[in-house]
């Protein structure tokens, strides 16, 4: 028991626990749409694009999330715009902007004399270093993202499932698309300090992918993904504390472990009771398995 309670006496651990739990939930909720839209690559690209913003914020001595948010949201909207205007495939425009913006970040980073540990922290994440001011800012941003999803979940679901039907019935699908990219960008900014640029795509994608192994209903998919997100953040943070390992990587490893478990043992899994492509589980089976 002491192993669990002892770290809670440390204020930096409590801050890290709050931050990573919030990141786990927000990433899982937004990530559900990311997975269903098949835009995981966009998440990865936006994360890398945040790097020049983080370096610029360091150079200008302003909070990292301000620079990261400007760079990430800007790139997210640029991906949407370039794809529409240049008439090229989306993965091509992502590839161009992804590498270009990250290179800009590395270039700016290399102009700084000496070793800057803080900036490396954003590549791999170090949630234990989060300060009280940053935590409050991230919580506000997180609430903002959840608020937007709370307002637009129906429209996002309809536009993701059937963009033509949604657009024909008056839902502004294109506007929603840009809004969604901006939401993904903010989610990534919130997650940068916890898991870092390189691993943030796992936080977005893995909980929803795990939930897909367990349920076939959208509403439950999101709830299961959020549960997976919270559980892996809490377990991962404790593990990293006990084992003295990198927090972001440990959290992502726990998520990956849960995904593999669902893949093997879930109702749709390789060792599940039912086999075969078209015998999906019934909803109640799946939910029972998820809550077991």
């Amino acid at each position, binding site marked *: 028991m002491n192993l669990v309670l002892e770290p809670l006496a440390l204020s930096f651990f409590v801050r890290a626990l709050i931050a990573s739990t919030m990141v786990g939930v927000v990433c899982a909720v937004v990530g559900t749409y990311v997975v269903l839209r098949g835009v995981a690559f966009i998440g990865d690209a936006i994360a890398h694009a945040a790097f020049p913003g983080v370096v610029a914020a360091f150079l200008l001595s302003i909070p990292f999330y301000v620079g990261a948010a400007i760079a990430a949201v800007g790139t997210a909207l640029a991906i949407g715009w370039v794809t529409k205007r240049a008439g090229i495939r989306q993965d091509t425009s992502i590839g161009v902007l992804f590498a270009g913006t990250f290179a800009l970040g590395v270039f700016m980073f290399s102009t700084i004399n000496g070793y800057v540990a803080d900036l490396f922290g954003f590549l791999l994440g170090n949630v234990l270093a989060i300060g009280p001011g940053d935590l409050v800012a991230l919580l506000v941003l997180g609430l903002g993202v959840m608020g937007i999803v709370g307002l637009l979940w129906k429209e996002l*679901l309809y536009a993701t*499932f059937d963009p033509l039907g*949604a657009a*024909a*019935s008056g839902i502004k699908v294109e506007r929603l698309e840009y809004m969604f990219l901006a939401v993904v960008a903010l989610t990534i900014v919130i997650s940068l300090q916890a898991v870092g640029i390189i691993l943030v795509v796992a936080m977005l994608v893995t909980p929803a992918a795990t939930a897909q192994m367990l349920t076939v*209903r959208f509403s439950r998919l999101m709830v299961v993904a959020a549960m997976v997100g919270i559980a892996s953040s809490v377990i991962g943070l404790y593990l990293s504390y006990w084992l003295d390992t990198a927090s972001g990587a440990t959290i992502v490893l726990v998520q990956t472990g849960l995904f593999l478990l669902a893949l093997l043992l879930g109702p749709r899994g390789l060792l599940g009771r039912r086999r075969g492509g078209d015998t999906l589980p019934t909803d109640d089976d799946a939910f029972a398995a998820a809550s077991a």
Partner: protein
Amino acid sequence: MEPLSPSESLVEGLVSVPAPTGHGPRPLPAHDHEVSAPHAHAHADVWLSDVTAGYGDRTALEHVTIAVEPGSLLAIVGPNGAGKSTLLKLMAGLARPWTGRIEILGSPPGREARRVAYVPQAELVDWAFPVTVEDVVMMGRFPRLGPVRRPGADDRRAVADALAQVGMGPHLRTQIGRLSGGQRRRVFLARALAAEPDLFLLDEPVTGIDPNTQELLMDLLEQQAARGKTVVATTHDLACAAQRFQQVLAVNRTVVAYGPSNLVLDADVLARAYGGHLLVLEGRTVVLDDAHHHDDAAPGERHFHDQGGQH
């Protein structure tokens, strides 16, 4: 192919014949057999005047002029690549015309979108998507709810009612990928019914489904038309178009013929609409057209070729 001029492309005397039924709750215009399509404007739920459209630099439709009156039950027929789906997308406001004018329910396309229900081809739906039958039909209620508001008791009642009409009540909680082809079409028609629209735009609603389902869906559409709602559906099934639709619009990149189904579906019109796809055997006309193919994907569309279901 040489583009036909609008006047040549229309079969004489078949233009803008008012729908035979339509004594429903919606006020209907006085029948006027003399008006030509461009001037039928004020009466029409769907009105296109000299519309040309396409994707990129590929022209899909040229010089289309039609007026569809409230209470019509209209089938759009034609071979693959004739522009049937494009025509429906123009009506739904999903594609913009290059030239010409369109009015839907008396306004530019999209303005009255909440009164329009559009059902895409089955190939455009990702059947592995984690939604149940109930989820899909509930989407029909989303536009009228707007952001913020959550589905309430009225919406659940409308969903249950629509599902009962299409005979899918017991499948409320089934993931859509587990349904047969006919059941999938029923669910999407239920979504359109739940939206309570004035205009139904249906892309291949009866393609590749069993005869029972086809009869059921056509009965429901007939009921809607009888209540003054307008139904426009593309179809590969000429027998269905002839027997169950009041009006037929034959297209092949432009309007070949438009009017009551018994007048439009003659060998001459079919020969012009289907060209080389038509075979005349001892007085019987056979259309050699693969009903399982569909128009090319428009740019940006994902097609899902899951013939699905185990039923």
